[in-house]
């Protein structure tokens, strides 16, 4: 079948014998290792419903912080403690200073730093998300500028929990739910013979030339805003074109195809398995340097596999401020269990990345994981003190193994007169987005809403 034609054999053709790489070596380490400096990679993970600060917040100080206490949400990450930078006290100021709180704004602003725009009748940002910006800046040397994954679709595709990634014009970047499809997209074209490859390559090139020409012709007739649609399209076509000759995946081992045992994507019982498959594919994609940017959302309708049969949103998160015992403790400890499960997923992703050698270290050393949420304290349902964790070695760009209290003190909304008034001492998450963007060489002094400027101090 022509579509199964080997990308690898095409590449061999292109590059002749020089590409006879020592595969045995590459089997076990990142392909990108050969480069002068290991690339920096970005993963944004989003999990919902806020946290309970008493169980989420580390104890102790910046260096001697402790996450290994009873019912600590972050306890599963203890083994990666030296590669954590726990950030307490970041706010989605752009939301509450523009008349918004609650769940809906969080996924919109998490990576965009934008306020919520509702002109469309929908809740969307006004600009691109950090993953897209970084992907456009650094992803051009890889096969995929970025990947958007989603562990489980809880509601329809338009639901806020399904989108943390947005294009330049504030439209949702669609995600892939099915690990089997992710696998096919990443690795499907590996294998096949070089004779077929030669015939196909030339045709593929002619095809891409035509498609780019046709799209460009149409774009020329459009005004700037309409033209943006074609810009997105053209960028996608150039991605395909680049893959024809890109050597990224060369010598990379095609991983085993995921089993189809989890093909029912609507079965909640499959969610842990699907999550794991997605996380594995992230690690495999990084090992092969197929992409350097990934976003993933892991929602939580309920979690029967850890004994949480309730609707986590309505029956747990919304009830964490229950005052009467023993209900209060029971509900809050269930919330801890849910959040610990998320932490376990982050830890397991870190395990996989740490298992891939790169240079004198591992792929994890050269990865920034941003783990975020839409709410702070679940009981208050406010977008203040959003639980935020940076994880991975970050290629030395950030100083890890620390816990920063960005705004020590009490509830910042305590004396706040209401929407429209600034909040003294609040630290906007836009600063973090700017810092991460800069770490990837994106030259910006602010990210998202233009009123919030500068980087987050203390990260380096």
């Amino acid at each position, binding site marked *: 079948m022509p579509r199964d034609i080997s990308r690898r054999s095409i590449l061999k053709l292109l590059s002749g014998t020089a590409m006879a790489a020592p595969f045995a070596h590459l089997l076990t380490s990142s392909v990108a290792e050969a480069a002068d400096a290991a690339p920096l990679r970005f993963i944004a993970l989003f999990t919902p419903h806020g946290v309970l600060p008493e169980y989420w917040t580390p104890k102790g100080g910046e260096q001697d912080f402790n996450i290994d206490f009873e019912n600590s949400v972050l306890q599963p990450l203890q083994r990666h403690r030296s590669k954590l930078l726990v950030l307490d006290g970041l706010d989605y100021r752009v939301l509450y200073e523009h008349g918004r709180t609650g769940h809906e704004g969080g996924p919109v602003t998490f990576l965009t730093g934008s306020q919520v725009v509702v002109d469309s*009748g929908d809740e969307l940002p006004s600009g691109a998300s950090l993953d897209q910006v970084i992907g456009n800046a650094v992803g051009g040397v890889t096969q995929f500028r970025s990947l958007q994954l989603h562990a489980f679709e809880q509601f329809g595709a338009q639901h806020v929990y399904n989108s943390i990634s947005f294009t330049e014009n504030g439209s949702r*970047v669609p995600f892939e739910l099915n690990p089997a499809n992710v696998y096919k997209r990443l690795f499907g074209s590996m294998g096949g013979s070089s004779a077929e490859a030669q015939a196909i390559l030339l045709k593929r090139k002619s095809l891409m030339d035509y498609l780019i020409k046709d799209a460009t012709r149409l774009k020329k007739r459009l005004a700037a805003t309409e033209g943006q649609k074609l810009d997105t399209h053209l960028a996608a076509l150039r991605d395909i074109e680049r893959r024809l000759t890109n050597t990224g995946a060369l010598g990379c081992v095609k991983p085993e195809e995921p089993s189809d045992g989890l093909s029912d994507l609507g079965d909640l019982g499959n969610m842990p398995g699907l999550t794991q498959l997605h996380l594995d594919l992230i690690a495999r994609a990084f090992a092969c340097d197929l992409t350097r940017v990934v976003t993933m959302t892991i929602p939580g309708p309920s979690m029967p596999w850890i004994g949480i049969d309730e609707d986590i949103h309505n029956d747990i998160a919304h009830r964490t401020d229950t005052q009467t015992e023993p209900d209060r403790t029971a509900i809050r400890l269930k919330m801890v269990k849910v959040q610990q499960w998320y932490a376990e997923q982050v830890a397991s992703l870190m395990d996989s990345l740490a298992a891939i050698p790169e240079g004198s270290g591992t792929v994890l050393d050269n990865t920034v994981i941003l783990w975020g949420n839409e709410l702070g304290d679940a009981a208050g349902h406010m977008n203040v003190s959003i639980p935020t964790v940076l994880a991975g070695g970050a290629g030395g760009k950030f100083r890890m193994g620390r816990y920063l209290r960005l705004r020590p003190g009490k509830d910042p909304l305590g004396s706040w007169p209401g929407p429209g008034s600034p909040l003294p001492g609040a630290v906007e998450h836009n600063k973090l987005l700017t810092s991460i963007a800069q770490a990837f060489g994106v030259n910006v002094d602010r990210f998202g809403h233009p009123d919030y400027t500068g980087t987050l101090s203390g990260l380096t």
Partner: protein
Amino acid sequence: MPLRRFVLSSALVLSASACTGNIGGADETPESAAAPARVRRLTREEFNKSASAVLGSSVDVAQGFAAEDTILGFSTHERLQVTSLLADQIDTAALTLAEEGRSQLSDLYACPSGKSQDDCAKAFIQKVGQRAFRRPVTPEEEADLLALFNAGKQGGTMSTGAELVLQALFSSASFLYRTELGPTTARKGQVVELTPYEVASELSFMVTGGPPDDTLLAAAQAGTLTSPDEREKQARRLLQTADARLKLRQFFIEWLGLNGLNKVNKNNQVYPDYSVDFRDSMVRERNAFIDSVVKDHAGSVQELLSANYSYVDETLANYYGGLSRTNVDDEGMGRVTLPPERLGILTQAGVMSTYAHFDSSSPIKRGKFVLTRLLCRTVPPPPANVSTIPPAVSEDSTTRQRFAAHTSNPACAGCHKTIDPMGFGMEDFDGLGQHRTEENGHTVDASGGVVAPDGTITAPFTGGAQLARYLSTNDELANCVPLQFVRYAMGRDEHASDAALLAAMRTGAYRTDQLKVTEALVSLVRSASFTQRRLPTR
């Protein structure tokens, strides 16, 4: 914002090349004169139908593509794009389709001796290109596609050339976007009439969700679509097709926000009747009832809201109180006369379940649903310094009692004094759409009211059925539906230039004849909003 990279747009190129007449635009029209020129990406369903039209047989390759999101509640909106993921999916699908076309369309590229292969290739390109682009192929495109054909033929045969051309067509921008740009000779800043082929596409996709058929293309070629009467005739012809009925079903489902029904989930401890099968029963009722309104009543919204009957399977017939069914069809659906507490679509289990929580009803969701979707009112989000946590489910009070407390907060009352009376009035249905007179041992109070924008209660009512009856003859609703239909069909919000169209819809046959959506559609295809666009100034 600083991140917005400067797109040195093609506008510069255009302005250089289009300097023949209009420099600076002294005779530019105001932006309010017509909605902007644009392109619209095909939805997955539209992709399938468009590919099927090229191949001449029905294919379904697009269901696995990235799903559309919704704007204003509709998936047919103008912001759809070809992102990286979708481009890859289309790339794969295009090859599958091209292989299929290579074997199915062999008559079209077969080349009898005595004819040059290039001529045969050109004929093929014109034929399939017109079907794919929904307009004749331009000479420039023909030359490009011929080069591609010959690249495909290299080391192969006519069939491999045809295959590569087909692969290109199925993944090309000219196939994936419908244009609404007018003629290429038009000047910047001007209002243009769309080309006949653009009008044909717009009409066809709006009515049937697919590309124009031969009759419509012939009308485009003959230039008759400039006539509103001809457009109406074509629309009425196409409305008789099965595709048009499905397309109207889609409008009703998206307008009423019922597209998520097949994902509704309920707490079985609260609602032991709930199961995946039960959910399917609700979906089947939704579809069968809407289909009957479309087929037998020309999409009458009055019928939709006030029918005293429905079409249900055995599960729902029992759930609704042991109703007896007549004319049960092969699919197990039969017609029932509804009990007095139910009326039309509003009180269907699927609607009441959609606008509810996992484990309780939701007066807030229901109130907001009627206000925003049925009456086109705007309900602002809660103020930022107010907690929006719904009160906890309690075993010794009614939902209404739990929710009533929060309206005592003056920060909330402004909006909730409108939302709550609407929602409370549907409290005679629980979170799975079962009728109830008691909740947790208390009598349910389902008295409610429609509150006018000025804050006065214009219509007190008790229970969902009374509300449905009121809405079925309500002016605000009658005026809202045309706006929702414009959003759905045009894929955008109301534009200043739509005033005449909306007035025509709101006073025309739609209004006088039982709020038949099909008549609103006819007003739309007759209008200037349908055929005119304003070109960008730069």
